[in-house]
């Protein structure tokens, strides 16, 4: 083994950014990916990437970006990594520009920026409506450059299945399976980076790609890597219902003027263009005058879901609302949103420039992920070149991108993921270089590499031989339906308990499932048994953590434990505000904590523990997107300080 070889699992934005940076810093890299890295899930991202470059004279700054991100995440994110990310964001966007990303431009030839949810600034750089694809391609090209120089080896169409840990519990390699020949092989390396994206498929039909099993995450978790905030998963407000997956209309459709509405009258059977403006209910604009259609995702999703389920105002009584762009000039729409409107037309056969789209919330993103640590400097930023940044609780195992739990707290702001993926990748590249410099780790013993590989082979052989009556793809569909019904938009403890039982029964049925295919060539069914096992394992962490967290925070909505703010009209002297804030403080005291799920091989469910959140820069406050609570909160704090001073 080269002393400088690191193993990166995943070739999305995060993995490729880490690989390219590690190569620049003198390391050699093996990259593993279930598909050619250019086909990674990151291609799906449409809307853009955030960085406070402030070219629009709006006085935007990295600090405001930081505040928006922390508030958007309902204070659940550790603040040092977020501050460092927001400060680096403008330079990351500049770097991507230099790498050749075809970002949209202003007439002066500068990068153009658009508005996204959860902020009042134009902070989102975009490349047509396929920003993720464009960013991924530029990173892919850089990595190919290093590949041509012999610094990178790619193992594409390979699935990582196991970490190799030495007797001290440090990662010294991994085992992966070639998905064509079905053969296993061990790879030694200084460190293993998991850049394996989100685990969306446990929710069945989602906006995620068909490879988002979370199979790497679950494998590492089962070997002892902690999983942070599993219950924090994001729903995208504007999903397009589909028979194979839920596609997405990017938030940029709302950023470019898209208006969400339903008929005011329940059961209105008229076509959209027969409903006069006065009889259309633009409920987001009416309920959130400050942010309107651009309220953060969790709020938009819940409002849309509730207006259909509880208020019965969905179009034709169905689970759908209008997302309307028809008031915008066609040429403008083509230029700004061409590719994403194309998607709608391609998959629904209707032109959204002429007819309002029909949308409904869909599972979209996981804020939670493998527990990634950091080391802060004295100013509360990431300590540069610390090998601890992005390292998990297992030495030598790193987590980056959607697969990690950092940066987004309880809710991610639109266009912050692409930034966090690239940023964490670059930081991780530096961590790896620092690790290599100080490493005294001996090469993994070949006997260990061999025995671990054998172990995986044996496990797979047993799976492939499984011949029960159950079809794993059917179990998966049922798992997805159950998770989406009881653990997504709103959560109720009674339903979650029921769901726990259902998930346990899926685990039982999996034991009686057939591999459907005994062949040794491109066998996608036998590996699916392993992938499904991983999804069931991770579902337990999600459901258990959701059941325990008795509050509403960010994307985690549990109405029975809600602490609703007094209405906008309530005078600030009203005791209702005090009661509201007292309850908020109590809730913060109990629940402003990172959930840590730990796999316990002796139990069928995980052990759930909590850790304090690093809030050193910004004191938690109630989220307020209506603009009214600000004064009341200031007054409450003043009073509290006065009483505290007296005491």
């Amino acid at each position: 083994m080269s002393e400088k070889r690191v193993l990166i699992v995943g070739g999305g934005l995060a993995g490729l950014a880490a690989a390219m940076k590690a190569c620049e810093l003198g390391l050699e890299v093996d990259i593993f990916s279930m598909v050619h890295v250019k086909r990674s899930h990151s291609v799906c991202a449409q809307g853009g990437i955030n960085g406070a470059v402030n070219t629009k004279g709006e006085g935007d700054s990295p600090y405001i970006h930081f505040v928006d991100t922390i508030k958007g995440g309902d204070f659940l994110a550790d603040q040092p990594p977020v501050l460092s990310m927001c400060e680096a964001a403008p330079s990351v966007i500049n770097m991507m520009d230099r790498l050749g990303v075809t970002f949209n431009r202003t007439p002066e030839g500068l990068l153009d920026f658009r508005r996204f949810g959860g902020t009042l600034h134009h902070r989102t750089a975009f490349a047509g409506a396929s920003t993720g694809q464009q960013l991924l391609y530029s990173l892919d090209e850089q990595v190919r450059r290093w590949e041509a120089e012999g610094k990178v080896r790619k193992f594409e169409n390979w699935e990582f299945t196991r970490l190799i840990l030495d007797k001290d519990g440090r990662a010294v390699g991994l085992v992966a399976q070639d998905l064509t020949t079905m053969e296993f092989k061990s790879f030694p390396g200084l460190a293993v980076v998991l850049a394996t994206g989100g685990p969306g498929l446990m929710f069945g039909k989602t906006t995620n790609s068909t490879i988002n099993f979370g199979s790497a995450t679950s494998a590492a978790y089962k070997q002892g890597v902690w999983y942070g905030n599993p219950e924090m998963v994001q729903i995208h407000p504007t999903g397009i219902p589909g028979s194979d997956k839920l596609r997405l209309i990017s938030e940029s459709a709302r950023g470019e003027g898209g208006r969400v509405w339903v008929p005011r009258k329940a059961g209105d059977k008229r076509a959209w263009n027969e409903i006069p403006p006065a009889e259309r209910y633009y409920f987001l604009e009416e309920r959130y005058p400050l942010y309107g259609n651009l309220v953060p995702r969790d709020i938009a999703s819940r409002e849309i879901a509730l207006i259909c389920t509880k208020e019965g105002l969905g179009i034709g009584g169905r689970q759908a609302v209008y997302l309307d762009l028809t008031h915008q000039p066609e040429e403008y729409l083509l230029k700004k949103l061409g590719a994403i409107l194309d998607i709608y037309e391609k998959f629904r056969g209707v032109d959204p420039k002429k007819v309002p789209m029909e949308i409904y919330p869909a599972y979209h993103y996981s804020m939670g992920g493998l527990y990634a640590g950091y080391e802060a400097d004295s100013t509360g930023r990431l300590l540069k070149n610390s090998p601890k940044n992005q390292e998990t609780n297992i030495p030598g195992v790193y987590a980056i991108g959607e697969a990690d739990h950092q940066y987004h707290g309880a809710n991610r702001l639109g266009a912050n993921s692409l930034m966090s993926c690239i940023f964490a990748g670059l930081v991780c590249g530096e961590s790896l270089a620092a690790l290599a410099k100080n490493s005294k780790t001996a090469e993994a013993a070949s006997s260990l590499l061999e025995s671990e590989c054998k172990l995986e082979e044996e496990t797979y052989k047993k799976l492939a031989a499984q011949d029960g009556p159950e079809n794993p793809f059917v179990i998966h569909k049922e798992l997805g339906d159950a998770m989406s019904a009881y653990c997504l938009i709103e959560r109720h403890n009674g339903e979650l308990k029921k769901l726990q039982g259902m998930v346990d029964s899926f685990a039982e049925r999996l034991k009686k499932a057939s591999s459907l295919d005994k062949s040794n060539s491109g066998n996608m069914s036998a590996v699916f048994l392993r992938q499904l096992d991983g999804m069931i394992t991770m579902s337990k962490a999600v459901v258990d953590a959701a059941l325990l967290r008795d509050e509403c925070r960010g994307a985690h909505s549990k109405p029975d434990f809600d602490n609703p703010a007094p209405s906008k009209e309530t005078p600030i002297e009203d005791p209702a505000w005090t009661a509201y804030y007292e309850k908020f403080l109590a809730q913060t005291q109990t629940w402003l904590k990172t959930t840590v799920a730990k796999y316990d091989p002796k139990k069928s469910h995980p052990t759930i523990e909590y850790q304090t959140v690093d809030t050193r820069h910004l004191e938690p406050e109630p989220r307020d997107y209506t603009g009214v609570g600000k004064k009341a909160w200031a007054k409450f704090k003043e009073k509290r300080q006065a009483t505290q001073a007296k005491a």
Partner: protein
Amino acid sequence: MSKNVEILVKRQDSPKAPSYWVEFSVPYEEGMNVISLLQGIRRDPKDKSGKSVTPVTWESSCLEEVCGACTMVINGKVRQACTALVDQLEQPIKLEPMSKFPVERDLRVNRQRIFDNLKKVNAWVEVDGYHDLGPGPRQNPDDQTTTYKYSECMSCGCCMEVCPQFTKDNDFIGAAVLGQARLFNMHPTGEMQMPKRLDKVTDKGGIQDCGLAQQCVKACPKHIPLVEAIGQLQRDITVNKVFGALKK
């Protein structure tokens, strides 16, 4: 009785095995595409006669026609399976693997060749480093409109599947790769390495093997002006040669 969708799949059990056709019949649902048919088959893996068979293997990822993975030949036309809507297809729907790349299993082929060729033509911008060097070069928004088209290329291989010059056993690099060479020649920094890139483009299997059949541009799902790219590359090569000679 509910309607069914009739499908014919060309299968192959392993890279060296012979191919064979299997008929399937899958319950119809509104809004189905070819992917949902294949998903339907694996939830109930039986052929039309009711005999149990192995689920069909195919490659997929984004299902939004931006990753290129699920490319196959559908009713004789190479395209992405995710945007192939059942309502718009004649039945029985015929699914075949691409013919210009080695089959690994069923509808899944090995397209490594495309990525190897991208490596050959230096399809990247050579930057000094990944540290903070300020903003990139300013660019005319009209140029962005042009380059964006090229950079939507998802290496799906449709242009190669229809190209008479691109065969399983020659080494023509194909239109998509030439399009990417053109893309980087247009970038203000990429342009600085144009002479080097053009040399590579004229290597063995390079642009000279293009027969100008112009099928590529018709097959490209992203409507990339591949013929224009090839024409411009040829002009650049000539200019480069003249200047090269003048410099000597």
